[in-house]
């Protein structure tokens, strides 16, 4: 910065140099480019602003081609038309519309530039107006300004792509071959993300990989556990490897908020929503579907949030996540989304709609896929004279397999059993007065001929349903119901004794402190959990024996997660609570194995396992001969526990010895200093604290002495 020069001084200098200040047009003075000669510019903040804008690049500028070529007279008219078209789609910057004119002919050149406030707006307009027919001979060709360079670089001749030699990748499923058959989990606390082995035998976790600031919002395992996905501002990434975690692929998607894998891990859906620059507009939503292995965008969907916000609940405001629901099975063949009066089913071979059109269903509210088969179940509420209905639709034939009409329905929820054998529809119906509702279940047997439906009502049909859950791979389900502060839990089976075609009640447990159900992934065992209001009560229940194995509490627990094998359960207190963040690992029967406390604990996720390759028969055979197989493992367990207690004893002994040694050393010093201490105390000798003794002193105190003369009656004798 130069020193401030006052006008007086300037005048003095100009006088001396013989320059007439009034004759000088100050605006005509130019400094050499790139040098301000130390003179601060008044426009400096203005310049800075410009610089900022330049940082953004030209992403917000569009080039519109194929405009009519008009003479000067019509210039303004054309500009008005273009402005009208493009200002509908976003806010054009002041002076952001520029239509160059040929200096010779004074005619326009047939193209113009439009600058928006944000790249999002520009992108949106490009999509909407590319191919816009102004008239028959003028069809707009719209491009991003940024792309021009890219298009210029396209070589004129096609060159065959270089074929890279095949490099064998790492074995991504290595973790499944762990000798001790342990499972992994990922935890996120503070800025750190850690993947750990659950070493239940040693009663502690073993670190696999730790990385600070691995993700910007959350992590997620792929459904079969092969990859760990992280989310960043620029997009998502997946990680995996034989022994550690390397980045395998990146998926560019700016400001991605949510991700979702297809069940077979072949595709990844990413989602982002962008603030509109015009507050009246709705959020703009961008969805990309990537191929997980190649990283290619298979299809993208863009639009306003409204288009994606129909039906369903949950997820991020406005949009129910996942937007695209995948059909079951490893093939990842179909995915579907719900729209207004339609369900759009896409196939992954072409990433286009099946039969090029959506399924039209008036007023459809909700749908879900069977977890194993390409069958859709959908719910349509009552509308006019039409009763509400639940129907099952086969894909790709779009043939209706079964339909059930329901009357005076207020709401419906669909629960598929994990093998796709059964579908339970929870139906809330209005009572006759329409003032309250009661609940019943419609149970579909999908795998049986003609799909029979059975209606189930609870013993007390006015009971509110708090939770419902199918036994994974099984035929039973559990319901928490009741209006009491302590509701009841009932178990039902889709089979009853010899008759496999009838539902039967197994038992009802009265007055349980539970509001959530967590079945073991292997079935049979279930945790009746009292979350939130019940402060983390846990009851470990065996449904085969109808017996409580253990009751426990993880105070304030917010999450319950079974490991994929059903051997262990994790309960966690995440950072929604301030205190006691961390997690507990329990055995399936409710024995607390270990507990880890972590401040700012965000996430606990078991690494999923792919489905077993064993056939059902083989599995049954193993279950039958469990004793034979388990012998080996029991011996191992015993060895480990022996070793552990041995190690423990050693450690304790060592600690004790160390302590003794230290104390002895001190005692020696203490002894040496005895004289000095005596001196400090003016010769008072006692150092020993035990020098006084407790003596029992009996004190007798006479409280009161009364003399009473008892009359002696002669007559009694």
């Amino acid at each position, binding site marked *: 910065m130069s020193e401030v020069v006052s006008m007086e001084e300037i005048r003095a200098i100009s006088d001396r140099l013989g320059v007439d200040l009034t004759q000088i047009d100050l605006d005509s003075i130019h400094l050499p480019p790139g040098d301000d000669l130390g003179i601060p510019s008044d426009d400096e903040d203005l310049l800075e602003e410009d610089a900022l804008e330049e940082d953004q690049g030209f992403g917000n500028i569009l080039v519109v081609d194929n405009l009519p070529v008009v003479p000067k007279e019509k210039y303004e008219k054309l500009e008005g038309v273009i402005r009208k078209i493009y200002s509908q789609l976003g806010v054009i910057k002041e002076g952001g519309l520029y239509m160059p004119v040929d200096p010779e002919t004074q005619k326009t050149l047939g193209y113009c530039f439009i600058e928006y406030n944000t790249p999002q707006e520009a992108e949106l307009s490009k999509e909407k107006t590319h191919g816009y027919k102004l008239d028959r001979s003028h069809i707009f060709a719209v491009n991003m300004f940024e792309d021009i360079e890219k298009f210029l670089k396209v070589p004129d001749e096609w060159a065959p792509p270089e074929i890279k030699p095949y490099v064998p990748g790492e074995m991504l499923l290595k973790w499944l071959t762990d000798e001790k058959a342990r499972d992994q989990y990922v935890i996120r606390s503070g800025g750190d993300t850690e993947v750990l082995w659950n070493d239940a035998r040693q009663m502690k976790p073993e670190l696999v990989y730790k990385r600070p600031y691995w993700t910007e919002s959350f992590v997620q395992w792929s459904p079969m556990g092969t990859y760990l996905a992280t989310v960043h501002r620029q997009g998502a990434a997946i990680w995996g490897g034989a022994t550690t975690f390397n980045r395998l692929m990146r998926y560019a998607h700016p400001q991605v908020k949510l991700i979702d894998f297809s069940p077979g891990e072949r595709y990844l859906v990413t989602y982002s929503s962008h603030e509109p620059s015009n507050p009246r507009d709705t959020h703009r939503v961008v969805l990309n579907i990537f191929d997980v292995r190649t990283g290619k965008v298979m299809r993208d969907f863009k639009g306003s949030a409204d288009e994606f916000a129909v039906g369903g609940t949950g997820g991020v405001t406005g949009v129910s996540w996942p937007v695209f629901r995948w059909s079951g099975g490893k093939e990842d063949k179909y995915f579907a989304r719900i729209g207004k009066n339609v369900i759009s089913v896409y196939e992954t071979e072409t990433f286009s709609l099946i039969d090029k059109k959506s399924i039209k269903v008036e007023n459809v509210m909700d749908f879900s896929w069977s977890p194993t088969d390409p069958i859709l179940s959908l719910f349509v509420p009552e509308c006019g004279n039409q009763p509400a209905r639940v129907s099952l639709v086969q894909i790709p034939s779009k043939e209706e397999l079964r339909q059930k009409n329901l009357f005076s329905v207020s709401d419906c929820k669909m629960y598929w059993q994990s093998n796709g054998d059964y579908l339970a529809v929870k139906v809330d119906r209005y009572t006759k007065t329409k003032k309250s509702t009661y609940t019943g279940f419609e149970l579909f047997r999908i795998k049986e001929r003609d799909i029979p439906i059975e209606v189930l009502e609870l013993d007390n049909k006015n009971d509110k349903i708090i939770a419902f859950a199918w036994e994974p791979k099984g035929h039973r389900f559990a319901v928490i119901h009741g209006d009491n502060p302590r509701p009841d839990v009932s178990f039902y089976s889709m089979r009853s004794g010899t008759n496999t075609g009838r539902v039967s009640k197994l038992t009802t447990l009265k007055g349980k402190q539970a509001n959530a159900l967590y079945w073991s992934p292997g079935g049979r065992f279930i945790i009746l959990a009292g979350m939130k209001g019940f402060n983390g009560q846990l009851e470990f229940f065996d449904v085969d024996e109808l017996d409580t194995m253990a009751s426990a509490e993880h*105070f*304030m627990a917010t999450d319950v997660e079974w490991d994929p094998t059903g051997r262990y359960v994790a309960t966690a207190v995440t950072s929604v609570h301030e*205190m*006691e963040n961390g997690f507990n690992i329990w055995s399936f029967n409710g024995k607390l194995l270990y507990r880890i*406390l972590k401040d700012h604990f965000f996430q606990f996720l078991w690494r999923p396992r792919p489905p077993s390759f064993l056939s059902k028969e083989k599995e049954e055979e193993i279950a039958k001969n469990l004793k034979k197989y388990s012998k080996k493992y029991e011996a191992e367990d015993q060895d480990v526990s022996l070793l552990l207690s041995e190690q423990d004893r050693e450690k304790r002994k060592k600690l*004790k010895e160390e*302590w003794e040694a230290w104390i002895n050393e*001190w005692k020696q010093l203490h002894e040496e200093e005895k004289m000095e201490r005596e001196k*400090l105390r003016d010769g008072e000798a006692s150092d020993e604290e035990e020098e006084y003794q407790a003596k029992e002193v009996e004190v007798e105190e006479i409280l009161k002495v009364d003399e009473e003369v008892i009359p002696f009656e002669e007559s009694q004798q």
Partner: protein
Amino acid sequence: MRPILMKGHERPLTFLKYNRDGDLLFSCAKDHTPTVWFADNGERLGTYRGHNGAVWCCDVSRDSSRLITGSADQTAMLWDVQTGTQLHTFTFDSPARSVDFSVGDKLAVITTDPFMGLTSAIHVKRISEDPSEQTSESVLVLKGPQGRINRAVWGPLNKTIISAGEDAVIRIWDAETGKILKESDKEIGHKKGITSLQKSVDGSHFITGSLDKSAKLWDIRTLTLIKNYTTERPVNAVTMSPLLNHVVLGGGQDASAVTTTDHRAGKFEAKFYDKILTEEIGGVKGHFGPINALAFNPDGKSFASGGEDGYVRLHHLDQDYFNIKI
């Protein structure tokens, strides 16, 4: 045995101290009036009236004749234990936080808080046998550490002074020259403010409790870290059993957060740890506020805890406790 609930203070407890014989228990609270109790049955014996602010700390002489108290009214007072009369008042320019008699009771160390631009300081006063000869002059004033000094105690043979406070550093000072001899290592030391410090009975080691949810055991001469005890709560008070190798940690969540959660969430327990194995043995519940003060009876058979809730709980330990084996 059922604990004896001693009600007498109207404000949160700050400090507890047994006399050497273990028959008297002195309690300090924010309610201005230190109180003395029978340590056996919890009966109130008397109070020491005269302070005009919260009383933060006290110490009693070896022969149980003198009591010294440090208070937020910017004084430390010397009392006659038996009669409750004030013998002398040391006035400072800032609240007195901690007091401790030396071996032989001829010296006392008093710490003062940072206040109105003054930094915290450690004062050493000579205590005269005859109270009429008592002067307020400091033998030594130590300054330097940032923030409050929560505890300062005498080292072996009165040669050193050990101080700990808000800056999470433990310092050993030369009691003659006032030089810092040792400072605890940042790496292994506490991460947050140290709230309490207690010497072992034989004076060979001491334990510090900190808001970083841990307590640590140190060698009093070399200031080497011997043990580390981790817990789930900020630690406000620590003490050690004179009889068994046990340490007791008291604390709880911050008083300001207490009302926002269930009382169980606060974990206002006195937690027993094995001193050598650093493993948790058990806990004694009862307070419904954080525990601010803990003291073990010199006979090791009972201990007292004082809470933010204003109660002193006197626990006589059952025979079972002495049979614990881990």
